[in-house]
């Protein structure tokens, strides 16, 4: 009875595991479909969201070319074994889009519901709240894949990028693991909006720090030592390094097995941490009665 006021009425907790998972999967899918419907209500804005990543990527590539005076950098070859800066930078920035997804799309999922005036209805739904954020996450991941597809089509049409096709599957496997860990970070971001309401500052600050420590357009070796250590605690480091290792042959500084193992550990750590933080903040805002505050 003590917790009755802080949890949604979820009858499925008494169901067999298979039926309960199916129930949650339905809720995740429904949330995903709802987000797509909302998004496609503004077709022009949707189109803009597909073009944005291309516009976003180009200054980084052009800056690299301006620095080197061409496409190939002997210094980069010395550091990581690959000379093609266009491929190096492009792959880094294409996959870092998933981090933005975790921080912004998931982080703002609850804030968006609050602005629509539907947060209370969502929180009263008979499923755990992590199911709701997972639905949001599913929509964000699918949207991100679409954006990546447009980015890649543009890049392949304009720049002659050669990647190892055999590396595609292991690269995607690593990206998949990175996504799981990012889900945990996204949960933390989502919960901070329950306390701070205007959570953009935290998303922006954390996103900026991650963009610096993640070796998106440079190898880990050029970072100061304290940043190198910090980089080893974030999943994007392994996602980007391994994707480039499989696709371009970049030397990572550790083995493939070690990269997978470390990301697996980070998945557990970030997801558990994210769920615990989310549950604690959710409970706290309900008890203090500030859930509906703006």
């Amino acid at each position: 009875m003590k917790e009755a006021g802080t949890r949604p009425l979820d009858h499925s907790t008494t169901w067999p595991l298979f039926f309960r998972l199916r129930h949650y999967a339905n809720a995740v899918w429904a949330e995903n479909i709802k987000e797509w419907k909302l998004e496609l209500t503004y077709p022009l804005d949707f189109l803009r969201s597909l073009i944005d990543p291309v516009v976003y990527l180009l200054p980084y590539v052009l800056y690299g070319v301006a620095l080197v005076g061409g496409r190939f950098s002997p210094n980069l070859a010395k550091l990581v074994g690959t000379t093609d800066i266009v491929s190096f930078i492009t792959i880094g920035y294409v996959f870092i889009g998933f981090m933005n997804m975790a921080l912004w799309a998931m982080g703002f999922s609850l804030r968006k519901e609050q602005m629509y005036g539907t947060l209370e209805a969502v929180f009263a739904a008979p499923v755990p709240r992590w199911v709701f954020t997972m639905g949001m996450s599913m929509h964000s991941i699918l949207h991100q894949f679409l954006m990546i597809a447009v980015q890649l089509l543009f890049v392949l049409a304009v720049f002659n990028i050669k990647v190892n096709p055999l590396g595609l599957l292991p690269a995607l496997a690593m990206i998949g693991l990175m996504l799981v860990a990012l889900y945990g970070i996204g949960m933390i971001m989502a919960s901070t909006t329950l306390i701070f309401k205007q959570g953009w500052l935290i998303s922006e600050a954390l996103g900026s720090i991650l963009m610096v420590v993640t070796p998106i357009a440079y190898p880990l070796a050029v970072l100061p030592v304290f940043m190198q250590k910090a980089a080893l605690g974030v999943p994007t480091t392994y996602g980007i390094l391994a994707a480039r290792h499989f696709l371009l042959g970049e030397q990572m500084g550790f083995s493939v097995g070690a990269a997978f193992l470390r990301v697996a550990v980070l998945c557990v750590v970030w997801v558990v941490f994210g769920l615990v933080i989310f549950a604690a903040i959710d409970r706290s805002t309900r008890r203090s009665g500030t859930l509906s505050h703006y």
Partner: protein
Amino acid sequence: MSLSATAYVIRAEMAKTIRIYFSYPVIVVFWAIFPVLWVFPFLFQGKAMVGSGTSAAFEQLTGSGNYMAFILIGAMVSNFVFSGLWGVGNSLREETYWGTMEYIIASPTHPLIVLIGKTLAEASITTCIVFLQATIISLMPFGISFTVAKVLPVLLLVVLLMLGFYGFAIAFAGFTLLIKEVHGWVHTLEWVFFLFSPIRYPVQMNPITSFVSVLIPLTWALVAIRGIILLNQQAVGLWRITGILLGMDAALLLGGYYTFVALERKTRRDGTVGMH
């Protein structure tokens, strides 16, 4: 409305905007620190690509091989552009969120006067933030030093840049009255500026970006400011660029005024001012 009453409204709006801004001191700290932090990936990228703090290829394009100083100056000056986009262009949208937009529209003051108050407040805050950034950066080993002889012409260029750009931002504020949710469009504009003006790279390296960039006042201002700070070009070509910026300012201010007035009238007639 008399001139003194108009000045009073502008002063009151400025005071209100600054008071709201400083109600969240952490936001001030954020804007002072993070625009400089956003530059770090470019510095590390430079270190990885060329292996040192200078680049011969970059020098051929810009006249200075110090790419770090190039990027940092771009980051500081572009603050004025982005504060215009977010602080002025998006300001009426914020009033809608706060539920105070109808009061502004119903008051006996033209919304443009209110917007001028917001613009002046935003310009003052951004100038303070950029001053703070410049102080921090000049203390660090990036090869950027500010002397009075350099600062005065730079200030003139910054004022000219702000005049024109805030004219554009006022037009954009009118656009927000019409289409309401512009958050995504502001981001797109941000990235368009990053691509077509030399904030982060020398745009003349590509014929398309080079062509488009001459239409953006920020390009002219950045070229002149970098010339003064990095190449010690003192007054060489400054008058020519001042003339170009003045012409652009006139076009943008007039265009901004007429666009805003037309869009504001349209939303009033359509009865959509209070809509979200």
